[in-house]
């Protein structure tokens, strides 16, 4: 039995947050601090002919004005590809590019200085649609062409599959730009330090990525760039590249002036500059037998990467390898392009390529069931992956329990599927319907890269414990998870466990906190550190007691002669001169992906989810109201069931916005959205009743059997709603968001540029 793990332990960081004591990035100040501001591009695609900063520099209170010319090292940064300028020179490629930055004694002066900088442009034709950008005569966003990346899957022979099919259906789906909408805008404070380097405090999701890039820009050793992460006021994948660029600019200003510099985006700047979720166009072709068996699937996807590559190569890879959904398909062909345009750039956002692919495949499955006259759940259960089956990429699922049927059956019962399909309710004007979507999702990074994390655990002489971890707390609760794991594995009361801030100078590089991987890799590393410490402590007890054997059981340290509490055991170990700190490492099991052949095992394990939505459609206004959602997610084991349910509530709400409300509208590269007054995320009045269902089938390769949850909760509701709208009205919507005009007219009404 567990004492801390698998229990709804209270969050370790919540007290500071409810009392207003938690210090977020903008709350940090240093004596002598200057305020920075950034001048941004005026056109989505233009040549920069001249930048004149002379007038700005003469303004009283201005301490520095910098451009690309002031960069001592690399002018470019990037997660995968070095293609994004810290400051644009020669050319701007999107409306959020920075041209120059100012540091001044106060914010008003900094802003005044920005308006005194003169930039001469020669406007260039731009390209604003990924499929246009793929044409030979399209304007080139970067010299080496507009294709950021191409991925494929090849299994069997789709042509043969389609010949064998009794029915072939072809459909096109489209998704939109959306904004992460973290409530805390981006902020950093950089200050020069006496070891010849720089310290940067900020809401930086992936501090090691930022450290590496900032070091490159400054021409400094990484060891001289120290990033101290402040609590993130939301991120959802969004505080990565944009924070790297911001941190680099603040660092340049701080080193130039020799003073601390704070840089904060207003909401308008945040919306203009920050990256978005990728819009996709997805064309699917599905071959079916009369009895409902899927025989072949072909998919083509084009993702709008915007002006810079960011994580597009990885986002589109996940869409590609999960394109066929959690189904047995003998013949598969998928081709995916990530493409440069002069739109705002796109990158990581909770779901990471799966919300788009799932909207298509899960709508398509419903369309197929309808064509065949089958119940959508019956159709999914018939084709859904089971233990030992082979995925669309040829991976045999043998090491973990394939939980697809279990999650589908759980939501079917929770939403009262059978009854609602027959009698959905409503009247002539108000129609009601119920729909479902399901998925499997590869846990952690998969073949994106080395998947390893380290956590240090230290025991002080009073038997209190500290954890130093390079895994980001952005609200999901990783700090609490790590405290639970350490309390469990050391037998220390959780109140005596403290987590220090994520500081790149103190914690092992654990890669990015992305891909819903923190619990798996961070939990595994913390566990490994505790095991090392336990060995040391047990060795000391053996010496102390002259014992044959020492062991740890039910939170107690034992020899055949004595029993010791954690505190007593630590006292003995310290008296006997043992060092009580340890770094534990966790590496996910090996996987193999053949990018050339488009086949392999992209992830070491998968999680399974299903969500059903019961909706109401007002046929006179097009308004869709979600009445109830049942969400079942298989997570391996929930380290903290209360926080797991919290992920489900939050993921469902965010996906409701994706499905019904949100679109970051962009016209010829110019955002039509500036602030939350013209970008509606779900409010307390929009969220439905949610029935969260946690399914636990512990995974042999995760710590305590744990896998992932953050992202799967956010990748299913949009297609479930689309399917429910079809059930309610007979109208099939293949484009997001399903707002009033889409539901009522079946097309988008475009807003005019302001």
């Amino acid at each position: 039995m567990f004492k801390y793990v698998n229990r709804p332990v209270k969050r370790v960081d919540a007290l500071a947050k409810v009392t207003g004591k938690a210090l977020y990035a903008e709350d940090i100040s240093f004596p002598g601090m200057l305020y920075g501001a950034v001048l941004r591009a005026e056109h989505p695609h233009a040549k920069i002919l001249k930048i004149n900063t002379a007038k700005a520099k003469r303004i009283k209170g201005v301490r520095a004005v910098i451009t690309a010319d002031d960069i001592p090292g690399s002018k470019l940064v990037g997660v995968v590809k070095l293609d994004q300028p810290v400051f644009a020179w020669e050319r701007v490629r999107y409306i959020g590019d920075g041209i120059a930055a100012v540091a001044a004694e106060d914010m008003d002066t900094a802003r005044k200085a920005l308006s005194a900088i003169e930039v001469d442009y020669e406007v260039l034709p731009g390209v604003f649609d990924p499929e246009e950008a793929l044409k030979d005569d399209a304007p080139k966003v970067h010299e080496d062409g507009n294709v950021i990346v191409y991925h494929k899957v090849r299994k069997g022979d789709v042509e043969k599959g389609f010949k064998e099919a009794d029915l072939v259906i072809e459909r096109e789906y489209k998704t939109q730009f959306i904004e992460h909408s973290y409530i805390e805008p981006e902020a950093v404070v950089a200050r020069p330090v006496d070891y010849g380097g720089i310290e940067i405090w900020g809401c930086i999701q992936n501090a090691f990525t930022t450290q590496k890039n900032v070091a490159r820009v400054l021409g400094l050793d990484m060891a001289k760039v120290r990033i101290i992460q402040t609590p993130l006021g939301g991120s959802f994948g969004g505080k990565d590249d944009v924070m790297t660029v911001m941190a680099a600019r603040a660092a340049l200003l701080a080193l130039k002036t020799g003073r601390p510099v704070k840089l904060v985006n207003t909401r308008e700047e945040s919306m203009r500059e920050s990256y978005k979720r990728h819009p996709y166009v997805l064309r699917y072709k599905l071959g079916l037998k009369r009895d409902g068996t899927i025989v072949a699937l072909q998919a083509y996807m084009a993702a709008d990467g915007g002006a810079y590559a960011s994580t597009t190569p990885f986002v589109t890879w996940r869409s590609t390898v999960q394109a066929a959904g959690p189904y047995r398909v003998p013949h598969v062909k998928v081709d995916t392009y990530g493409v440069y345009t002069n739109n705002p750039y796109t990158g990581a956002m909770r779901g990471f390529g799966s919300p788009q692919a799932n909207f298509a495949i899960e709508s398509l499955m419903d369309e197929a069931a309808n064509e065949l006259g089958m119940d959508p759940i019956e159709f999914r259960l018939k084709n859904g992956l089971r233990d030992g089956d082979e995925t669309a990429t040829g991976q045999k699922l043998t090491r973990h329990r394939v939980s697809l049927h279990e999650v589908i059956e759980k939501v079917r019962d929770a939403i009262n599927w059978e009854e609602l399909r027959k009698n959905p309710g409503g009247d002539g004007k108000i129609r009601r319907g119920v729909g479902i979507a399901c998925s499997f999702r590869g846990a952690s990074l998969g073949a994106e890269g080395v998947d390893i994390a380290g956590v240090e655990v230290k025991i002080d002489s009073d038997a209190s414990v500290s954890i130093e971890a390079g895994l980001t707390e952005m609200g999901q609760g990783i700090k609490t998870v790590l405290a639970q794991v350490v309390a469990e594995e050391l037998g220390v009361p959780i109140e005596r466990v403290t987590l220090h801030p994520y500081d790149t100078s103190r914690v092992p590089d654990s890669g990015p906190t992305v891909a819903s991987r923190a619990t798996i890799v961070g939990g595994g590393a913390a566990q490994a550190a505790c095991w090392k410490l336990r060995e040391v402590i047990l060795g000391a007890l053996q010496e102390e007691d002259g014992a044959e054997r020492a062991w740890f059981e039910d939170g107690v340290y034992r020899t055949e002669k004595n029993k010791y509490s954690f505190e007593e055991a630590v006292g003995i170990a310290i008296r006997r001169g043992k060092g009580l700190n340890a770094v534990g490492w966790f590496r996910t099991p090996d996987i193999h992906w053949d990018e050339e052949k488009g086949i392999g095992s992209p992830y070491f394990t998968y999680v399974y989810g299903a969500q059903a939505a019961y909706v109401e459609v007002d046929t006179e206004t097009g308004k869709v109201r979600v009445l109830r959602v049942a969400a079942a997610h298989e997570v391996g084991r929930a380290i903290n069931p209360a926080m797991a349910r919290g992920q489900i509530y939050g993921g469902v709400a965010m996906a409701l916005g994706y499905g019904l409300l949100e679109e970051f509208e962009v016209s010829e590269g110019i955002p039509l959205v500036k602030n939350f007054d013209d970008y509606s995320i779900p409010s307390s009045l929009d969220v439905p009743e949610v029935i969260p269902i946690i399914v636990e089938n512990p995974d042999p390769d995760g710590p305590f059997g744990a896998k992932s949850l953050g992202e799967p909760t956010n990748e299913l509701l949009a297609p479930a709603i689309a399917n429910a709208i079809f059930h309610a009205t007979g109208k099939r919507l293949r484009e997001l968001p399903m707002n009033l005009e889409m539901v009522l007219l079946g097309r988008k009404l475009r807003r005019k540029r302001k």
Partner: protein
Amino acid sequence: MKKLTVNFTVNGERVRLRVPANRTLLDILREDLGLTGTKRGCDTGECGACTVLMNGRSVNSCLVLAGEVEGAEIITVEGLGGEEALHPLQEAFLEEDAVQCGFCIPGMLMSAKYLLDRNPDPSEEEIREAISGNLCRCTGYIPIIRAIKRAALKLKERK
């Protein structure tokens, strides 16, 4: 910018400040008084992160100008309750796991306090309405709504 002198109280303490006339209450709290518990999210009154109580009413402090603060009584999250003596709302938010990233929470707490001050026994619809101006991207609001219900019960029991 013309400067003006304003007198008001924040969390029971008297404050006298000379500030530019275009300074917002949000900036006065955060920049001049160092009360950074009140958060900045949009500067346009859309997100609710900067919600405080002014003369007992909830306001978006980013929309209140210095001149309007004269003589006012302001309560921020720092005045709601400290670690030693948490307000029932703060306790309930902890108990219901209503906090994730935490950035919306100070504003959410102040909107909830305004509701419970006027209406000690709110329905779920009234709670949803009361916090509809406070955006949260993490929690899906459900645990927050539960926490406010729980706080109402706690307050009733204490009476």
